[in-house]
Structure formats: structure tokens, C-alpha cells
């Protein structure tokens, strides 16, 4: 018996076109930015809007990524995901209000430390909530989309009401930490510092998530499980445990998104999670259910579209995103980066 291969191995490479094809949707982002440039005559406004669009897109991505993976992995559609956004925002903002001496100080280190503490608290609470939510609300209704939608919607209502019980009925206004206030000027365009930070955080998270999904065994199990959960099981992995992990991580990320979103709006309400979920749904659908990359591109598109249209014709901001969804689904009915599902 010989160990030598029968013919000399050559590392096969895909042709350029083959490599580019799945990334076609990525080109939509610059295309949309360009279209925005043409539609908005003023370059400085365009730059400002592009940055806020990207910031918004990143935040939507942070919120949507968990939802799309939860769907991909266990075919669970969670309408209650918005509850984690709201809860995260309220917990995070409460912490920030408690740490007023840190957020008010003109020191970037203290500000970031306060922000980090708020984020950690929010993620811990929403992660724990996610664990409970999965166990109590979602687990009994596996396999039935109808019941999942109904029950998770019910869970969302209860969670929203709980926020009212705990924090009172009104919205809370929150100022950004001292050093994240204000804006800088580049090429004559005013760019809010916080938005730039949000873009940074979102991008780092995306890269981190990609690294986990591609470079770790858990990541491989998640990606394989999205495609064919049964085979993952038959290989010896308890996909349920991985699913709970993803659910908790997704909930924590939604909590993080809630804090970011709350500081972006400088105001939080119990209903904010539900409101943002509308954009999240659009993102998840156009990205391709279960696809993190598609979700990222979709979130950027939706964020940009929302900001450009809000500038051009405020009434049509949401309508334009629905139009975007319609257009993309006409092009690719399963979303931009559909996940190949076994069976």
C-alpha cells in the first residue's frame, strides 16, 4: 500500500468570476452609496448621511445577527428578539445614569470605562433573559412556526410591560458620555463622534464574529448546523447546547445593540425594540435567513437607505426600505446570500 497520491495534487482554485459571484451583493453597498451621492447634490451632507447610515447599519447588524443565526440553526423564528433590545437599553442606560460622575468627566478613559460597564451589564442581563426565554417561551414550540410567532410575540408584550413595571411608564432621556459628544469635521462635513465609534464597534464585532465562525470549532458547528443540523448531531455534537449558546449570545448582542441604539437616539422607550425589529426583519429577509454575511450587507444597505431617504423625503424612509426588500427578493428570492439548506 502506498501513501503517495495517485496524481500530483494541485491546489484547485476557483476562477475570479466564481469567487466574485457570491459576493455580488457586497457591491450593492458601494452602489447604494454612489446612488446616494448622485441623489444628494451636496457632498458634505452626503458624507454625514453615509456615516450615520453606516452607524445605523452596524447597530442593526449587531441586533439582527443573533436572530438570523437562531433561525438558521434551529428554524426558530423569534419575534421577541426586540425585547432584548429594549431591556438592554434600559439596563445600560440605568448603569450610565448611575455612573454619571464617570460619563460627565472630560476623560476618554473614564467615559469608555462607564460605557463598557453599561454594555457588560446590559449584555449580562439580556443574555440571562435569553437563556430563560429560550427555556420557557421557545422550547415548548419547536417545529411549529405558527406557534413560535404567536408565543414569542406574547413574550415580547410581557417583556415590554415588565419594563414599564420596573422603570415606570415614560421614556428616559440620556446624554452621551462627555468625550463622545460633539462632532469632528472632515472635508467640511460634520461627523458625530458617537456615530464613528458606533461604526467602529460594529465593524470590529463583525470581524470578530467572522473569526469565531470560521476559526473555531464552535463556529464550524454553528455554520454546519445552519446547513444540516441532523448531520451535525450524527457526528456527535449536541446541537441543542450549541443552539442555546447561540441564542444567549444573540440575546446579549441584541442587548448591546439596544445600548448603542439608545445612545444614538439619546432617548429610550419600552417600545423601541419592537420599532427597530421592523428594520431587523427586513435585514434578515434580504440577507438570507441564517447568513451572517448577508445580514451584515443587508444591515448596511438598510441603514444607508434609511438615512438617504430620510434626508430626501422623510415620509418615505420606511417605504424605501420595503422597496429595497422587494427589489432584492425579486432578484434573489431566498435573500442575497442564501444558506444552502439540506432538504
Amino acid at each position, binding site marked *: 500500500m502506498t501513501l503517495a497520491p495517485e496524481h500530483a495534487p494541485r491546489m484547485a482554485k476557483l476562477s475570479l468570476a466564481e469567487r466574485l459571484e457570491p459576493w455580488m451583493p457586497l457591491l450593492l453597498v458601494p452602489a447604494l452609496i454612489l446612488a446616494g451621492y448622485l441623489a444628494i447634490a451636496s457632498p458634505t451632507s452626503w458624507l454625514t448621511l453615509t456615516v450615520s447610515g453606516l452607524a445605523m447599519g452596524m447597530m442593526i447588524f449587531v441586533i439582527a445577527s443573533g436572530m438570523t443565526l437562531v433561525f438558521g440553526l434551529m428554524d426558530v*423564528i423569534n419575534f421577541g428578539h426586540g425585547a432584548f433590545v429594549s431591556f438592554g437599553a434600559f439596563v445600560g442606560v440605568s448603569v450610565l445614569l448611575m455612573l454619571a460622575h464617570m460619563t460627565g468627566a472630560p476623560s476618554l478613559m473614564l467615559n469608555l470605562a462607564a460605557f463598557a460597564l453599561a454594555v457588560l451589564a446590559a449584555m449580562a442581563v439580556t443574555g440571562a433573559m435569553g437563556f430563560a426565554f429560550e427555556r420557557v*417561551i421557545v422550547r415548548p414550540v419547536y417545529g411549529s412556526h405558527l406557534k413560535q410567532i*404567536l408565543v414569542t410575540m406574547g413574550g415580547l*408584550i410581557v417583556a415590554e410591560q415588565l419594563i414599564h*413595571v420596573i422603570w415606570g411608564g415614560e421614556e428616559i432621556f440620556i446624554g452621551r458620555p462627555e468625550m463622545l459628544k460633539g462632532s469632528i469635521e472632515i472635508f467640511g462635513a460634520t461627523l458625530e463622534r458617537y456615530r464613528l465609534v458606533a461604526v467602529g464597534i460594529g465593524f470590529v464585532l463583525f470581524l470578530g464574529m467572522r473569526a469565531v465562525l470560521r476559526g473555531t470549532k464552535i463556529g464550524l458547528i454553528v455554520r454546519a448546523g445552519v446547513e444540516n443540523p441532523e448531520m451535525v448531531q450524527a457526528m456527535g455534537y449536541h446541537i441543542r447546547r450549541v443552539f442555546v449558546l447561540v441564542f444567549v449570545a444573540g440575546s446579549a448582542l441584541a442587548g448591546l445593540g439596544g445600548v448603542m441604539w439608545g445612545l444614538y437616539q439619546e432617548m429610550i422607550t419600552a417600545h423601541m425594540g419592537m420599532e427597530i425589529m*421592523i428594520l431587523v426583519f427586513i435585514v434578515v*429577509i434580504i440577507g438570507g435567513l441564517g447568513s451572517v454575511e448577508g445580514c451584515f450587507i443587508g444591515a448596511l444597505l438598510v441603514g444607508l437607505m434609511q438615512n438617504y431617504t430620510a434626508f430626501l423625503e422623510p415620509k418615505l424612509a420606511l417605504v424605501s426600505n420595503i422597496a429595497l426588500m422587494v427589489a432584492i427578493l425579486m432578484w434573489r428570492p431566498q435573500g442575497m446570500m442564501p444558506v444552502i439548506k439540506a432538504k
Partner: protein
Amino acid sequence: MVRLLLSGDRPQSVLLGALLLTILVCLAFAPFLFPGTRSLETAARICIFIVLVASYDLLLGYAGIVSFAHTMFFGMGAYGVAIATQRMGTGYDALAVGTAAGAGLAAVFAFLIALFSLRVRAIFFAMITLAVASAVAVLVSQLSAITGGEDGMNIRIPRELTPAFRPFDGPVLGLNVNGRVLNYYLVFVSCLVLFLLMLRIVNSPFGRVLQAIRENAFRAEAIGYRVVFYRAAATVISAVVASLAGAIFAIWLRYVGPATTLGVEIMLDILLIVVIGGMGTMYGAVVGTAAFVLAQNYLRDWMGGASEATSFLPLVPDLLNPDRWLMWLGILFILSVYFFPTGMVGRLRGVR
């Protein structure tokens, strides 16, 4: 005769039959049995919500599709009437045109959404309807030139349907019959007809195919039914009936606004009633609505009292605050989906 009217779909339970009959009698003679503006309002609201909820049940219970755009269709009917009377002046023709226009718009929207999302994946429907409904709600509150914006629109209806009109000189059966009572009967009769019509639809071969699809879409497709077509048709029928209910609501209320027709709260109410009443039974809409509207009126008062009585305890009074009524409904809703998926009607019929 009764059998024919009910399209052979009998209540199958003495208790349920008695309950339905009681509700029917109460609604039919509401102006005489419960005189007073407030109770007449409640009765008309029950009538309209029965139709609205039943039309939602047609979609959720029979076709197994979750929609969050039902209030949008409801609103289309209501705004149709409002806009038509504003443009065409007061008159029955305006009411008819408005109703028809609202129904037509609802049908077109429903058809497009259904074709678009059901073709791809049935679960997209829930998400897409949520997005579209919010977009429409935003538009309605912002396009104030057409819709009156957040303030809504007052509707002028023919004099015969207003309290100022008095057809008889004296009281009839002890009641001073005025145009408002006539208006109530317009509501009652229209709603009864619409309800019986829907009962007919779900008990027709079409309705049976819908149920077959709900149980197993693949099998239905394999047998040769075009699933997308049937689901789209159910969506359109459901939307049109909802818009008709909206038109009736507008004529009754003589006002339409975003909160009264398009609000998220109303959508949640519909969902709760269908599930608690019993999905896929039609009669669930009747008993569910009656129970829900009555509970809404009395339970809230009770919660207020209980909240005050427990004010010395921590947290409990906040939980019992009447404003938190929705939370208890949410919990009830979740429990219903788990433990009583067939709802009140299922219980009464002794199913599971």
C-alpha cells in the same frame, strides 16, 4: 333553515350553542335590552370586532398564516369611507364608493403581499406584513393633507343614521328610536351577514383545502392543489372582509384616526381574541370577542381596585396597575397557545 344559515357548521356543544344564542339575542336586541349610549357603543364594538376577528381567524386559524397587517386592511376600509365622504360630500353614494374603494385597495395590497411573500416562504409573510403595516401607519400619520394625520378625520354621514333623526313620534317598545339605533342595526345586520358569509366560505370545499394546506402544505401541493393560490385567496378574502369591517366601524364611529384603526394595540387585541376564543373555529371569534370586550371593561376596574388595595406591598401594585392589563393578557395569551390551542370553543366542544 338554521343549518343552512350556519352552512352546516353546528356549534357541536350545547353550552357553546346556548352561549352563541345568548350573544346573538343580546346583540340583536341591544338597544332595547341595554338602553344607554355607552352600552350601545359596546354592542356595536362587539359586532364589528366579531367580524374583524373572524376574518383574521380565516387567515390564522384556517390557512395557518400569521399576518400583522390586519389592522392595515381594517384601516383601509375606514379611511376609504372617510376620504370618500370628505371628497364627495355626505351621502350614501359616498359611503358606498368609499367602502368599495377601501375594499379594492385592501384586495390589491393583500394580493401583492401574499404573492410576494408566500411564494418564497410562508414565514416571511409575518415579517413582511409587519413591515408593510408599519410603513403604511407611518404614511397615514404623516400625509395629513389626505388622511388628517395624527388627528384623524371626522366623517359626516347621512342624517338618517345620526341621533338627530327621529323616525317615530313616540317610543317603540319603551325605546325612543333615533338614527343612532338605525345605525346600530345597520352595523348589526352587516356584521351578521359578513359573519355568515365567512362561515360559508370556511365550510366550502375551498375552506377544506385551506385546512388541508395548514395541516400539510407539501401533501396538499402533491395532491395537486396550488398552495400559493389558495393562501393568496385566503389572504385577499380576509383582507376584504377586514376592510368592510373598517368601513362599518367608520360609519358607526363617524371618526377615523391612526390610533383607532391602525394601532398596534388593536392588532394585539385581534391576535389575543383569536387565540383565546379558539383558532380555526369561527365561533371562537364570537365568544372570544364578547368575553374580551366585557373583560376589558370590568377587569381593568378590578385591577385598579386591587392595585390600590395592595399599595402597601412592593412591586405588586405596579403589576396590578390597570395600565399593565396588556401584560396579563400577554401571559394569558402564551398560556393559551401552550395549553389551550383550541381556545374557549375547543374547551366547550371538549376537544383536548
